[in-house]
Every structure is written in structure tokens, then in C-alpha cells.
């Protein structure tokens, strides 16, 4: 299943003001940490996705490499949704 739209929605709702570009311009492999995501505001994204999809991430999931791009986040969600 593809969660790209959900991820973009959460990015828009939770971090829209903090990102340096408009969410609709972000490609799935763009490095989000170059676009305004950082180790602090990534928490809003993680919690936003948990709430939106009713899933729970594990401690090891909160590793910056999993949140580097929309594509990586999508893969992580797919693993957790199984």
C-alpha cells in the first residue's frame, strides 16, 4: 500500500510552516533534512503519522535515516502496518 499522500498531508499539517518549500513540491526521494526537517521537529511528523494511521513506531524506528525522505517513511510505515 502507498502512504505517500498521508505522509504529505501530515507534513503539510504539522510542519507546513517550518519547511522551506511547499509540500507539493517535495519529491519522494528529496532529503527532508535539507528542507527544514530536523532532529527536533521530526517528532511532530512521527507522532502525526502515528495518529493518522493508528500505528505505533518502535524506538529503533526513530532513527533519522528512516525519516530522511518520503520514500523512506513510506517503507517504514509498510513494515509497521504488516
Amino acid at each position, binding site marked *: 500500500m502507498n502512504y505517500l499522500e498521508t505522509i504529505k498531508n501530515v507534513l503539510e499539517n504539522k510542519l507546513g510552516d517550518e519547511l522551506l518549500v511547499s509540500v507539493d513540491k517535495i519529491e519522494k526521494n528529496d532529503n527532508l533534512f535539507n528542507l*527544514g526537517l530536523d*532532529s*527536533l521537529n*521530526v517528532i511532530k511528523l512521527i*507522532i502525526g503519522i502515528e495518529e493518522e494511521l493508528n500505528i505505533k513506531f518502535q524506538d529503533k524506528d526513530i532513527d*533519522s535515516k528512516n525519516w530522511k525522505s518520503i520514500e523512506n517513511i513510506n517503507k517504514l510505515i509498510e513494515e509497521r502496518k504488516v
Partner: protein
Amino acid sequence: MRMIKKGEKLMKAHFQIFNDIYINCKYHAILNMLNAFNVDVNVILYNYITIYKSSPQYNTYKPEYITTRNLQDILFENGILEEKIDYTLNLFEKIKECNRNDCCAIIRVDMYEIPYHKEYFKKKHYRRYVLLYDIDIEKGIVKILDREKNNIDSEFISVDFKQLSKWYNSYLKNFYFSKIDTDCTLYIFKQIYKNNSQVISNNNEFLFDITCYKTELYNNIKTLQEMYTKIKPDSYKTLKISLSKILLAKQADKYRFNKIGKSQCEEIIKQQMNMITVMLYYIEKNDMDKVKEQLKNFIELEEKFNFYFIKTCGRVK
């Protein structure tokens, strides 16, 4: 070493901004002042250690950066003379003087008056350091380097001189004269000679004997343990502030150890940074038990870090 001739322009009008790490606005200004004079930033980066300190009045903990030698001495050894000025009631004259002598300056300002710092503008008085690197007397414009909250990188910003005076005067009024912060408000830097030997950049190591700082490093463990014992169910707000600041310090350390090529230290720091993010996650979830569990692991890693730091970067006599 080459002495600077009178009237010789050395400071670059537009230099490569050092944006690789952001320790705090003071360090950022100092590192970029070095860049403006084309001096290797490593003279600072490899000359400090991070110590954790408690701020009892706020119930928070924060990293402080202590240079292992006096900062003025370090700069002087690298051809830069620092003049510290408590305060001035005529900022314009001082800046004109800077311009004549090809100096740059670090100025303390109040973010309450800075329109691009939207979070603070006309809302909250907050201290900040900005680097002034150029001035256009005719146009009445100064060029500064500053970073907006939501920007990753600092930028060159042109500011009307009157604006800058307003920011500075607000700082004087709300911090200096009200005795909240009586440190110098203006720092002027002049390059007196150019060090061509490039000793620093080729060394790629810490420029002091780390073994001398064992006590400070191990006191960091005690401070973190104190932080651990003081965690209460309602301390999420103060803990979040402390961890966010420690995270910035770790980012800076990661950068330094990567540059020096000390992979064991760098690997530990990466793990610690992840742990801080996990702690921040559990703070948002209000799960203080999980936060404590992570902090305990973090402290263990800090001990491991100290061991490798001293082992791999300490000098054998």
C-alpha cells in the same frame, strides 16, 4: 607569517558562510568572522570541550563550550586581534571606525526589535549575537550575517543602520543596563597578520591535551546523572529544553569527530543523537519512564564516549 600592510583590504566582501554546524549564535558569529578573514575555523573547533551545566533558576541543563585556552589568545595566535567593548552609546562611530580599519564586529542585539525573527519580534526580549562584516557608509547600510529560526543556513542580510542601532540599543536597555547580562556588547576583530603555515588544517587533531580535562569530562557524567534523578512526571517542558540544547552540542561534536576521523567517537555520538530524538518522542507522549530508560542508556554512552575521546584523542607524552 605575513604582516598586514596599512590600508590593505583583507576581509572578504562576500565569504563562504560556515553553515556546517550551528552550536549557538555566538559561536556561529565567531566561526564566520574567521571565515571572513580566511582563517581556518578549526582553530576554534579543535580548541574547546563541551561541558554540561545546570541552570537551577530554570531547572534546565545546557551545554557550555569552554575553550581550552583563552579565546583572545587563540585568535591572536592566528593573527586576529580582538577588542572587547563593554558598551557604546555611539554605535555608528564605532562601526565607521571598523570600516576604516577593515575590521568586523560581533554585536549583541535584542530579537524583540528584529522583524525577521518573527517568534520574538515585539513579543519577547531575547539575546542574540550577529556578525557585522561590511558597511556602506554612503547608503547607510550595514551587512550582517544572521539566521532566521526556520532557515537552515545563515544568510547575508543588509540592514539599515538605524535599524541595527535600534536592535543594539534595545539590548543595552533590556539586558546590559538592567544588569541581566553585563558581558561586553561589542567585539571588534582586526587581522594583524596572516598565518600562511596552515598548521591547523593539516593537523586534524585536537590542539590541546585532552587528558588534562578528564575531571571536566567526568563531571559531565555527574551532571547527567543529576538530570536523571531530577526527572519528575511534570518536568517534560524543562527536559525538552535541556535535551534540545544537548542535541545541538552533539551535532557539533559529530561534525568535529567526523573531520578528525575518529570514527568510534562519531559512532557513539550518532547513537546518542538518536537517543535524544527517542527521548523527545516519549516526552511528547508524556511517558517519563521511557525517557528515564533512554537517559540511562545515554549516560552509559557518555561514559563510553569519554573513554574513547581520551583514548583516541589524548596525547601520549
